[in-house]
């Protein structure tokens, strides 16, 4: 059709249709503009909220990755460390006796007044300042004395020597130096005694206190008597165990059920009922799964409380419907022509599914799995009901040991009474958890694109 033929009816002036079309065009264009505006507005609002959330978390949490350390010269003063030399292996001594002697010696080393050694080394740094032993103790984290002890046990030759050591400052110093407490408050409302405040400021100015990367956050478990040393490792290991249990249990079971339901099961009332139930299970509040876990795994099967095993089982149950639904969706998306091609060639149903249908759905199943797992390790509510909100200071060695989990640790720290110290620390824990999630999602994306390229 030529252009003139097309435009001729429009060109004829006074055509009633043309003015009508033009009027409706204006309406349609306006509707389109409005709709685009709504879209842009809602995207802006959503991004704004996310940015606000992330900037708040980062602003709060990033400083918590750095903690003040005090660099002092520690003298292993023989006048305070009054212990015999470390027992050495004797020819006529049995190994058991040697071990006993060693333990004896270590106990004596532990009894040494290590606080006094720390106190002396601090006093030596500021001889002009009048301070009590208590003032000094406020400066350095409680557990640093054990570090000195361990150093000495490791190397008894330190006796009488003076070595420069960076001691972790206490949580209160951290708060004071970072300005997380109102510095203008009256002395009786401050967390640090006056002498300690002054010392902290002075050391910070002359560089003896510096902000060091907080490795304890990643190498320690939770701690209450030395909040400065509280870390996430225990929670991380707990979460890791649960993640492994979820991957090992929920993924194979979920994928297998999805395959059976989608590819093999007859379509009848029973499978309809199962399908409805699975869809409903996905919508059950997670705390209900926690109750179920407490009733079944703890009360009936007598799994230990607070153990990642029980937590992992509960999270597996919770993740199953997600995995099943997502896997079924990706199986359903496989074109029937692929199945027909295989069946028409004489492949059995199982061969058709495993040789042709399943490989095409790997990316989908993978995404489903990782979304399910990410959802599971971010879950808190069901874990509270099986006792994973316990205060645990030991590292879980097996999944049956007591442990906590990253999100639960966040919950615990958020409720800690040492508010101004633990608030940034909570935000730091959130950053760690979000990083784990982001890493999982990144893995999902990389794996998916790799599978898609191969297919």
């Amino acid at each position, binding site marked *: 059709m030529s252009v003139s033929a097309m435009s001729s009816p429009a060109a004829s002036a006074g055509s009633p249709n043309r003015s009508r079309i033009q009027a409706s065009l204006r309406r349609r264009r306006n509707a389109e503009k409005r709709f685009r505006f709504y879209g842009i507005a809602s995207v802006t609002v959503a991004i704004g909220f996310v940015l606000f959330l992330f900037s708040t978390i980062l602003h709060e949490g990033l400083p918590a990755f750095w903690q003040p350390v005090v660099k002092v010269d520690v003298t292993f003063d023989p006048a305070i460390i009054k212990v015999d030399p470390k027992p050495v292996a004797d020819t006529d001594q049995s190994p058991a006796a040697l071990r006993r002697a060693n333990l004896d010696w270590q106990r004596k080393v532990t009894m040494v007044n290590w606080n006094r050694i720390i106190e002396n080394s601090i006093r030596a740094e500021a001889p002009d300042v009048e301070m009590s032993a208590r003032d000094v103790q406020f400066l350095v984290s409680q557990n640093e004395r054990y570090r000195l002890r361990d150093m000495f046990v490791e190397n008894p030759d330190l006796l009488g020597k003076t070595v420069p050591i960076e001691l972790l400052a206490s949580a209160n110093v951290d708060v004071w130096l970072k300005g997380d407490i109102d510095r203008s408050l009256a002395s009786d409302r401050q967390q640090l005694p006056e002498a300690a405040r002054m010392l902290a400021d002075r050391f910070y100015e002359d560089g003896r206190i510096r902000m060091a990367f907080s490795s304890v956050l990643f190498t320690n478990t939770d701690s209450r008597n030395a909040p400065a040393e509280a870390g996430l490792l225990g929670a991380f290991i707990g979460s890791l165990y649960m993640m492994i249990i979820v991957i090992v249990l929920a993924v194979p079971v979920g994928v297998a059920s999805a395959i059976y339901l989608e590819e093999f099961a007859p*379509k009848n009332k029973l499978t309809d009922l199962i399908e409805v139930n699975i869809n409903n299970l996905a919508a059950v509040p997670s705390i209900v799964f926690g109750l179920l876990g407490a009733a079944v795994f703890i009360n009936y099967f007598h799994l230990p409380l607070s153990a990642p095993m029980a937590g992992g089982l509960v999270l597996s149950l919770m993740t199953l419907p997600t995995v099943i639904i997502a896997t079924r969706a990706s199986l359903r998306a496989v074109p029937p*022509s*692929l199945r*027909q*091609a295989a*069946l*028409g*060639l*004489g492949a059995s149903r199982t061969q058709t599914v495993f040789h*042709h249908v399943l490989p095409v759905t790997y990316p989908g199943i993978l995404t489903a799995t990782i979304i399910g797992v990410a959802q599971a390790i971010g879950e808190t509510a069901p874990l509270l009901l099986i006792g994973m909100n316990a205060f645990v200071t030991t590292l879980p060695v097996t999944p049956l040991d007591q442990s906590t989990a990253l999100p639960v640790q966040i919950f615990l720290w958020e409720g800690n009474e040492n508010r101004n110290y633990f608030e940034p620390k909570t935000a730091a824990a959130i950053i760690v958890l979000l990083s784990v999630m982001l890493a999982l999602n990144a893995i999902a994306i990389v794996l998916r694109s790799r599978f898609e390229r191969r297919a």
Partner: protein
Amino acid sequence: MMFNAPETQKMNATLAPASSSNQSSAALPKTFQTVRTPDPEPRKVRVHAQDVSVFYGPKQALFDVSIDIPEKAVTAFIGPSGCGKSTFLRCLNRMNDTIEGARVSGTIQLDGEDLYDPKLDVVELRARIGMVFQKPNPFPKTIFENVAYGPRIHGLAKSKTDLEQIVVESLQKASLFNEVKDRLHEVGTGLSGGQQQRLCIARAIAVSPEVILMDEPCSALDPIATAKIEELIDELRANYTIVIVTHSMQQAARVSQRTAFFHLGILVEEGPTEMMFTSPAEKRTQDYITGRFG
């Protein structure tokens, strides 16, 4: 069994039952009577179907179809959309089994063996009766793997070289080898539509079936690719029994030796292709091939 001709069912739903002026109702008494014209020189019968009816749930799609399919010849099924020709084709290798709620009655025999014998293994049957589908559907794997898959699952190749030989021969028979010999290990889905369809044919003949069913194999292809496939079908006729469903009457006329005309679930007429397109015995056949309906 009580059968209603589909025409009457349709009429009852739309017209008054008393209406008799309708052309199709006048033809009613003849509907189950297939007009058959034998070949001038009879061929050996490979597939024999007797009174085959197919139901999808409560709906009957095929009414008492009986037909003999000769060996080493191309039999074409023609007819308007929804006439049951594809349904009947799918009965021949029991692909209807895969459809939920489909039910087949009557007997179909391959060399006298009942295809619907409960003892018969449908997997073995489909190795003997291959199928090519309307839309090219190669596996999303390499060209080599596409062809090698059938022989591999059926254990037809004794060794790796044996398998390679089967793949090459099948591709040659499907006149695709020269086009793809340098990229056997690239994905089959990257080929053009016509090449994909020939790959599907190569895949089907790689298991050396006795019968090949083709369900509108050219409907998704351009004329040049169609011509290639038709040429291929003509070559394959020397060794295989071929049944082809087609919408194109020219195609049926070009490639087939016998033609069967289906209409509304009924096999109306079957006979030698030449006769079917020049002097059909049935008025409905005549109307269809002259384009009066369809």
